[in-house]
């Protein structure tokens, strides 16, 4: 294996900021307009070996902590929401393998391969006919003579056609109940993807979250050895909401930065502090402050579990509620922050060609509460609120 010099987190962050300001930001509008995959951004992320940042260094990755990886999602969120979202979704799948696949010969070899080839992982969780419930599958994996076959009607597989592999949830065998699920890693190149639905949306247009009928086959070792119920509770649920919360906070930070620049311009023009807009900027930053605070609290709690190697703590209802709150609150606050930033910038923010245009950010922001609907998450929280004594 090719040896790579160890780099510090500060160096990695600086690299991501550099890529963000140059390549990622430069193509963000085109990605949005064409509703296309951010090829340039991911070519750059690959060449800087940033797809393996969460993989432990023993496998060839950077071995960053989840807090650090989430910080990278946040940074990317400043420049292109779609790029940041794809990066986050990839990291969620990586985390599932890192946390639950290291004991498997196949998956530990795959982790090495991921680092060497900078592979991009996608996910197929929801299924036609289950109403968006991750914890139910209709399809199942069929194993015979060490080989499996799997067919799934997936209403959403983000960036499927641009991924190297897809982690697919399904029932563990043909007689398994809907909730007895496993995750199977399928190689995209060896998988038949027949389009079901397209992806022409208001925002997050670059995630290319189209639907497909997926037909895959492979070796039975590609079935992740841990039951999906455990993978979800210990990893996918917290990592999703924490990385998404981070990138939404990055989007909010990016909008706030634009608003600040606009206020400075106003001040340069008049030599006086523009009273109303400056006050609005101060208020806006208070919302951003709460967003960051809520996220940081939940992040700290989960990082402590990871550091103690005790992910069973993540099964506690109190923690699940906290992580759900990160999702619901951050996804709604990002709309609030971008909207407030638009009020500050004014017509220049409303113009698509304005210097501090916030049009794309505003459209993207509205997706956060809808992609994995907040009402569904509140429904889960409502049930858990009934049983916990204190949140």
């Amino acid at each position, binding site marked *: 294996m090719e040896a790579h010099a160890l780099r510090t987190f500060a160096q990695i962050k600086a690299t991501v900021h550099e890529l963000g300001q140059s390549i990622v930001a430069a193509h963000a509008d085109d990605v949005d307009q064409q509703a296309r995959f951010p090829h340039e951004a991911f070519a750059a992320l690959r060449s800087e070996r940033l797809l393996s940042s969460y993989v432990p260094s023993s496998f060839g990755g950077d071995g960053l902590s989840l807090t650090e990886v989430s910080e990278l999602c946040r940074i990317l969120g400043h420049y292109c929401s779609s790029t940041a979202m794809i990066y986050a979704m990839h990291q969620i799948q990586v985390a599932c393998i890192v946390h639950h696949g290291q004991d498997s010969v196949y998956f530990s070899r795959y982790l090495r391969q991921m680092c060497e080839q900078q592979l991009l992982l996608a996910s197929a969780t929801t299924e036609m006919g289950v109403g968006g419930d991750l914890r139910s599958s209709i399809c199942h994996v069929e194993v015979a003579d060490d080989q499996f076959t799997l067919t799934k009607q997936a209403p959403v597989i983000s960036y499927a056609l641009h991924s190297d592999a897809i982690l697919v949830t399904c029932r563990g065998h043909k007689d398994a109940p809907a*909730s*007895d699920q496993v995750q199977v890693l399928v190689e995209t190149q060896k998988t038949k993807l027949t389009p079901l639905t397209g992806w022409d949306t208001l925002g997050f247009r670059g995630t290319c979250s189209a639907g497909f009928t997926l037909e895959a086959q492979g070796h039975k070792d590609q079935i992740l050895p841990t039951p999906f119920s455990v993978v979800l509770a210990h990893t996918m649920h917290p990592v999703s909401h924490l990385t998404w919360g981070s990138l939404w906070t990055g989007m909010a930070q990016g909008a706030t930065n634009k608003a600040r620049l606009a206020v400075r311009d106003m001040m340069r023009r008049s030599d006086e502090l523009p009273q109303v807009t400056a006050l609005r900027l101060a208020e806006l930053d208070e919302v951003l402050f709460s967003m960051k605070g809520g996220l940081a609290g939940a992040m700290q709690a989960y990082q402590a579990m990871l550091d103690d190697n005790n992910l069973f703590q993540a099964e506690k209802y109190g923690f699940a509620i906290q992580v759900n709150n990160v999702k619901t609150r951050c996804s709604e606050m990002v709309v609030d922050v971008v909207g407030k930033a638009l009020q500050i910038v004014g017509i220049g923010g409303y113009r698509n060609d304005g210097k501090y245009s916030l049009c794309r950010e505003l459209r993207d922001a509205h997706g956060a509460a809808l992609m994995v609907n907040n009402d569904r998450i509140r429904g889960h929280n409502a049930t*858990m609120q009934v*049983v916990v004594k204190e949140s």
Partner: protein
Amino acid sequence: MYQERIRTIVAKSVKLSKDINDIQDSDDLYSVGLTSLTTVNLMLSLEDEFDIEFDDNRLSRQTFESIAALNDAVEELSA
């Protein structure tokens, strides 16, 4: 030893994919139909039946994953 009373409650609160009599004490209830949401009904029914209260520290998947685990919890809470 509360297994029999627990079994009656599990059968009543959870939409099981097989008969309660075919489920062993150590079987994973989540693989036969228990979900995080039905866990709540189950917990409330157990609290009523045994006049106990599940503290927040116990509210996780592990506590509810099998008849045996539930029996341990009920025994500890009613001690």
